[in-house]
């Protein structure tokens, strides 16, 4: 049995669905951020796999993935900083208790 592109795309789809489930059901804002990391990784697997199978020898997908990793790191840093600031101010990290701007 030989690996095809479908294997990698199905794996990425499953990982994406797991991340969506976590982002929908976690109360803890840190848990939501971790689920977002899973979703980013699913997308990265897709990009690298398509780059490897469709354009062998040329690697635009890997370059995209490097930029996604950099932006995801920045997003993670800012998200965690905001969570810490909210925790200092309101003593909670639960997303369903952050309702200050809810009408």
């Amino acid at each position: 049995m030989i690996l095809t592109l479908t294997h990698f795309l199905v794996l990425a789809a499953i990982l994406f669905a797991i991340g969506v489930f976590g982002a929908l059901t976690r109360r803890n804002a840190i848990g939501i951020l971790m689920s977002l990391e899973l979703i980013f990784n699913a997308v990265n697997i897709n990009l690298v796999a398509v780059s490897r199978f469709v354009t062998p020898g040329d690697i635009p997908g890997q370059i995209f993935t490097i930029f996604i990793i950099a932006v995801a790191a920045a997003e993670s840093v800012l998200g965690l900083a905001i969570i810490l600031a909210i925790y200092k101010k309101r003593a909670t990290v639960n997303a369903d208790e952050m309702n200050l701007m809810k009408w």
Partner: protein
Amino acid sequence: MIETILFYAFAILIVVAGILTVTSKNIFHSALYLAAALFGVAGIYVLLQAFFLAAVQVLVYIGAVVVLTIFVINLTKGITGKNVPLVNKQVLPGIIVSLMTAALIILALLKTGGFDMIAGSDTGAGNTALIGNLLLKDYVVPFEVVSVLLLAALIGAIVIVSRDKEGEK
């Protein structure tokens, strides 16, 4: 053949660790399972002959993002104890939506067809040199933009966190 075995090993690691990440009762364990899942993704990158990306994945995700997450979990420890429920009331809709998402993507993939191509005989040698050349020649503008973005995120995080309770410096 060995590639197929490794693929399934890493895939099982990713899926099991991912499910434990989103369902674990303890948010700290959840972060550790996240590190395992990200390590599995690094293994998948090696199988795809993206060696530089595998190293970046381990360094940036496991070395920086997961460690940062664990720090924040420890700083907010008092409210993430055993008795605090970690999931909201949307578990059943969440299961339905995520299963339907996966089914939609996979069915679209299988119905479309044409994705059953086999990788070429590229060995991935010189992968890091190729990436370095591309980043500093063809993609030098986005590279610089990302460095400015990272600097802005760094300064922003310091400013947001360094305020104390009264909102003063």
